């Protein structure tokens, strides 16, 4: 019997058309070109690529669409565009530029109806609800102990992460990209309790994000956290590990993955 394989998703932070901080790939001329890097990661075996637009200006966003357009010409694995998506028109522009999926984060918090509108128009399979969550003591308002935050964790909301995921799916999201702000960049492993609480509460795929520091961190996100996919950034960009290293560790832990790029 065969079944769906688990995914390794590589995320690149893009600032005004350039990959932030650069990426260490052997014999790479331009460490900051997202188009070339996306292709490299496809060849290295990445199952999906995410471009997260971290530029804070309208100019940056139009540059991002151009980057997506040039990437779509040469990339043959799915591409998700996130960051700064605030309206159905933004979703349409991203998809037209060649994105397969669009990640919506703070705009959905402000206006949850955006999820339904985008889903009705373009299909749930391209609407990703991106949730940033921060741990705190469970309370009546935040029963799961994970509060939704926006703007990289600087802005707390009134939403419980698990309840928000459930509502987001009810409104039309076809996938949840779930980032633990506590673990993001810490490289101490994924926030498994958060991942599991959300994955068990929703009937769509969940992509775990934040905390990958070594190949052994990915399997628990899937086996214990019940995620469909694990997102990585720094550990592959720094040249510490390859995507193949991550896939090997997953396979050895009993997680079915795609081994040939």
């Amino acid at each position, binding site marked *: 019997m*065969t079944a*769906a394989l688990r*995914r390794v998703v590589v995320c690149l932070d893009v600032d005004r058309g350039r990959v932030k901080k650069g990426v260490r790939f052997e014999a790479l001329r331009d460490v900051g070109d997202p188009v070339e890097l996306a292709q490299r990661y496809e060849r290295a075996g990445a199952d999906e690529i995410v471009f997260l637009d971290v530029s804070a200006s309208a100019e940056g966003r139009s540059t991002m669409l151009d980057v997506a357009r040039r990437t*779509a010409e040469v990339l043959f694995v*799915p591409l998700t565009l996130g960051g700064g998506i605030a309206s159905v028109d933004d979703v349409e522009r991203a*998809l037209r530029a060649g994105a*397969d999926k669009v990640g919506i984060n703070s705009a959905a918090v402000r206006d949850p109806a955006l999820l339904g509108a985008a889903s009705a128009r373009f299909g749930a399979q*391209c609407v990703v609800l991106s949730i940033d969550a921060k741990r705190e003591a469970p309370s009546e308002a935040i029963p799961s102990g994970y509060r939704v935050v926006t703007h990289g964790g600087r802005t707390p909301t009134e939403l419980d992460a698990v309840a928000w995921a459930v509502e987001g799916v009810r409104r039309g999201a076809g996938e949840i990209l779930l980032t633990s702000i506590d673990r993001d960049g810490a490289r101490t492993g994924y926030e498994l309790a958060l991942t599991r609480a959300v994955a068990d509460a929703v009937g769509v795929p969940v992509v775990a994000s934040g905390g990958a520091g070594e190949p052994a961190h990915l399997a628990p996100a899937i086996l214990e956290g019940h995620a469909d996919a694990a997102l990585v950034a720094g550990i592959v960009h720094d040249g510490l590990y390859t995507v193949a290293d991550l896939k090997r560790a997953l396979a050895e832990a009993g997680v079915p993955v795609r081994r*040939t*790029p």
Partner: protein
Amino acid sequence: MRVALLDLGVGNLHSLEKALALALPEATLYVDTDPAQALAHADLLVFPGVGAFSGAAERLAPHRQELRRALSAGLPALGVCLGMQLFFDASDEGPGEGLGLIPGRVERLASPRLPHMGWTPLEPAASAPPLPWPEAVYYAHSFGCRPVDERVVLAWSSIEGQGGARERFAAIVRHENTIGCQFHPEKSSQQGLALLGALAREVLR
């Protein structure tokens, strides 16, 4: 060889167009919004795969009879994802008539987690021709084709079904010169491109 990619106005054709250009280097590619025009010059008609069933069926409706006639008479056609679903009679996803070239319905998959989004292996049918089978292909769908006659299925895929069962659905179907795949070969990396070319050549021969 002229390949016409139908633009049904329901999604982005970028990737499929680029993938076809790489998979069929000998082909001249046209993107047609008018099915009648596509029929007039195509050696292979490609039905793309993004959007909802109803919207695409509505766009095809005025040309349904001429498309049916041309494809039944042997014009090679390749459908990807929604494009393959349009070869069937109707869909659970919404109202509208498919082309009705392959008897059967498109039904919502029975799985605890939908959309089925990600890489899944193919299970070739015993009758399948030798194709360059990839390790896995990329899917993004919630509906699957249920052909009345399962002999049209060249390959299956399975995902987790309800209550621990497995949910099997048609991954590749072929009926005469019409071939379709539920997955996205244009999103299935290099092995997907090779399979895309092979599927097209199956019906072009």
